[in-house]
C-alpha cells in the first residue's frame, strides 16, 4: 500500500513527506530531500504504459530548462505489497498552483499574461532544442510558483521527433487535450507534428487566460463541435484594450493559426516576439 509512512520507509533521505492529490496513473508526494531541497516523488502505477513513462523521463532529462522541474533521480521498486512493480521519479518541487486553479478566480491581468507567455515560451524553446514536442500545453500543466514564475510540467505524452512514435500510425486521433491540440495533432498527422503544435496550444491557453473562458469549448455542444471550430476558423483572439501596439494580438493570431505553416517558425521566434511587447503602463 502506498502511504506516507511507506514512502518514508523506502526513501530515508526524504523528510516532511506529504501526500498530494493525484491522478489515475501515479501517486504524488511532496517532501524535502537532504541535498536537493523541495522535491516531489512520483510513483507510477504498474498498469501505466511503461514506454510512455520512460519517454516522459527521457524528455525531462534531455530538456535542460530553468522553466521545467529537474528530475534528480529515478528508479523502480519491485513487488510493492498490494500494488506490484512501481517506477518512481524524484524531481524538483515547484510550490504554487496550476494555471487552471488561478483561472478559477478570474482572468489574468496584462503583466501576468505576458509573464505566463514568456516563461512558457522559454520552456518551449528549450523543449524544441531537444527535438521534443510537449503536446499537452494547457492551464493544468503550467504551474505558477509562489514567486510568480511559470513552469511547464507533465511530459507524459511528449513526442520525441527523433524516436519512433508510440502512437499507432493508423490511429484516427493522436494524444492531446481537446481544445488545445492543433489539427495536425488531433488528426494524428505525425509527419506534420513539430514544435509549432505547442505554440497553438499555448495560444489557446493565453486567450483563455486573457478572457477567462475557453475560446473553443465555451458553448460547444460536444467534442466534434470543438474539433470543427478548431479546424474551420482561426483562433478567436479578442481585442486586447491594453495591447496598444497590437503586437500581442498579432502574436496570438499567428500562434493560433490552424495551419502550422502560418504560425511562427518556432518557439524561439515567438519568444523574441513576446519579449518585444511593451508592458502596459498600469500593469
Amino acid at each position, binding site marked *: 500500500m502506498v502511504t506516507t509512512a511507506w514512502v518514508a520507509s523506502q526513501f530515508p533521505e526524504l523528510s516532511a513527506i506529504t501526500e498530494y492529490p493525484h491522478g489515475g496513473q501515479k501517486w504524488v508526494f511532496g517532501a524535502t530531500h537532504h541535498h536537493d531541497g523541495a522535491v516531489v516523488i512520483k510513483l507510477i502505477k504498474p498498469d501505466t504504459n511503461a514506454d510512455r513513462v520512460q519517454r516522459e523521463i527521457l524528455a525531462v532529462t534531455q530538456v535542460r530548462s530553468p522553466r521545467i522541474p529537474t528530475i534528480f533521480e529515478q528508479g523502480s521498486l519491485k513487488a510493492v505489497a498490494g500494488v506490484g512493480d512501481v517506477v518512481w521519479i524524484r524531481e524538483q518541487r515547484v510550490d504554487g498552483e496550476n494555471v487552471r486553479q488561478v483561472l478559477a478566480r478570474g482572468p489574468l491581468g496584462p503583466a501576468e499574461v505576458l509573464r505566463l507567455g514568456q516563461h512558457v515560451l522559454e520552456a518551449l524553446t528549450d523543449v524544441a532544442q531537444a527535438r521534443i514536442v510537449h503536446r499537452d500545453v494547457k492551464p493544468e500543466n503550467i504551474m505558477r510558483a509562489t514567486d510568480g514564475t511559470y513552469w511547464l510540467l507533465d511530459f507524459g505524452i511528449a513526442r520525441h521527433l527523433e524516436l519512433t512514435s508510440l502512437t499507432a500510425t493508423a490511429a484516427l486521433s493522436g494524444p492531446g487535450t481537446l481544445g488545445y491540440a492543433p489539427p495536425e495533432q488531433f488528426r494524428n498527422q505525425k*509527419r506534420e507534428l513539430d514544435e509549432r503544435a505547442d505554440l497553438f496550444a499555448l495560444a489557446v491557453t493565453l486567450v483563455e487566460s486573457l478572457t477567462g473562458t475557453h475560446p473553443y469549448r465555451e458553448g460547444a455542444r460536444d467534442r466534434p463541435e470543438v474539433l470543427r471550430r478548431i479546424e474551420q476558423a*482561426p483562433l478567436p483572439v479578442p481585442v486586447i484594450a491594453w495591447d496598444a501596439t497590437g503586437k500581442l494580438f498579432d*502574436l496570438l*493570431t*499567428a500562434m493560433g493559426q490552424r495551419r502550422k*505553416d*502560418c504560425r*511562427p517558425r518556432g518557439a524561439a521566434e515567438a519568444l523574441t*516576439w513576446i519579449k518585444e511587447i511593451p508592458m502596459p503602463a498600469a500593469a
Partner: protein
Amino acid sequence: MELQLQFGFGMMDHSRSMIDAWNGGTVVLSPRDLSAVQLERLAGDVTSLPNGRVLLDPQFYLPHADHERLTSHDYWPASYDTNDFWSGAELRQLIAKLSDLNRKLACEAFILPSLFAERVDEDWLAQQKVIIDEAQDSCDRPLFATVALGADAVKSDESIDEVLAAAETWSVAGVYLVCEHPKGEYLLTDPTWLSNVLDLVAGFRLKGKSVIVGYCNHQMLALACVGANAIASGTWMNVRSFPPAKFRAQYEEEIKQRAIWYYCPQALSEYKVPFLDIAKKQGVLAQLRAPEELGSTYADTLFSGVQPTAVNWAEQSAFRHYLQCLRAQATGARLDSFDATADAHERALDSAEALLELLHRVGVRGQLRDFANAIDVNRAALNVIRSSRGPMLRRNWAAI
C-alpha cells in the same frame, strides 16, 4: 517587386528594347519559343545591355511534350521512362546539360526542371527532392526550384500545405512558381485560387526563399502584398497566364486571333481600340489615359484628339505600353510595410472599381479583359491573407 519579361512568341525585339529602355531587367528565356542558336544570341544581347540579366525556364513540365522546338534542345531527354528516369543517369544528365546551358547563357540563377503537378502527391514531392538534391553538385549559381501546379492543385489547401512543408527541406535560394489558371481564365474569378497562390508565395518568402512567379498578368500585382520578389509577364495571353497545353504540338496559337488591346492601368483593364472610340464619343477617353508617372509614351497617339481607331495603333506599341505600365506598377507596389502595401493594393482596387462603374455606365467595357469581376476576387484573397499571414508578414516584412 520586379517585373521580369516572360519570353514568348515574337518577343525577341521587345526584350532587347525594353531592357535597354529600362536600363536593366531580366528576361526569362523560353526554349519552346527559341532555338538553341536564338537562345544564345538573345541571352548575349540582353546580358550585354547595362544590368541586363537572363534566366532559363527549362519547361520540363510535361516530359512527354511533343512541341518540336522545345524537344529539339540538347538537354531534352531522347526518351522518358517514368520509372527509371528519376533514379538513374538520365536525371543526372538532364541537370548537367541544363547546368552547362545556364552557364553558357550566363543565367543569373539556375531554374531547375520540374514536372507539372495536376495534384500534389508523394511521387511529385519525391521528384522535387531528387531534382534539388541532384542539382547541389552542379551548383555554380543560385538554385531556384520550379513549382508548377495545375489549377486543382492550387485550389487544394492540403496541396498548398504539403508543398510548403516539403519546401522546408529544399536547399534552394528561391522558387520559380507557375500556376495554371482555372478553366483557362485570363482574369481569375476564383478567390480561393488567388488566395492560395498568395499563401504559397508568403510561405516561401517566410522560409527565406526568393520567389519569381511566372506567367502573370496585372491581376498578380497582388503578389506584392506577400513579398514576391518578381512577377514575369509578356506580350500574348499565353505568357500572362500559364497554359500547360502550349508545350504540346497541337496547341492552338492565340496569335492567330490577333486583336490589339489597350491597357488602362488605373482600371486594371484592357480595351479593344474600338471601345476607346466609344470612350471618346462619351467624353471619358481622357480618364483612360495612363498616368504620366507610369512612364509610358507608347499610347500617346490614342489620346491625341483623333478617333483612336483612326491612328492605326500598332500591336508593338500595345505590348510595350502594357509592359511599361505593368513594370511601373510592380515596382511601386511594394511599400515599407505589409499593411501599407496591402492598403495600397486595396486602394488601387477601389479606384479601379469607381472608374469601371463610370465606364460601364457609358458603354465602355473591356469584355473578357474587364477587371470588374476580378476586383472582389483580389479583395477576398487579400482578406484571407491578412487573417492567416498578416501577423507574420507584418513582423518579417523588412526581412523578406
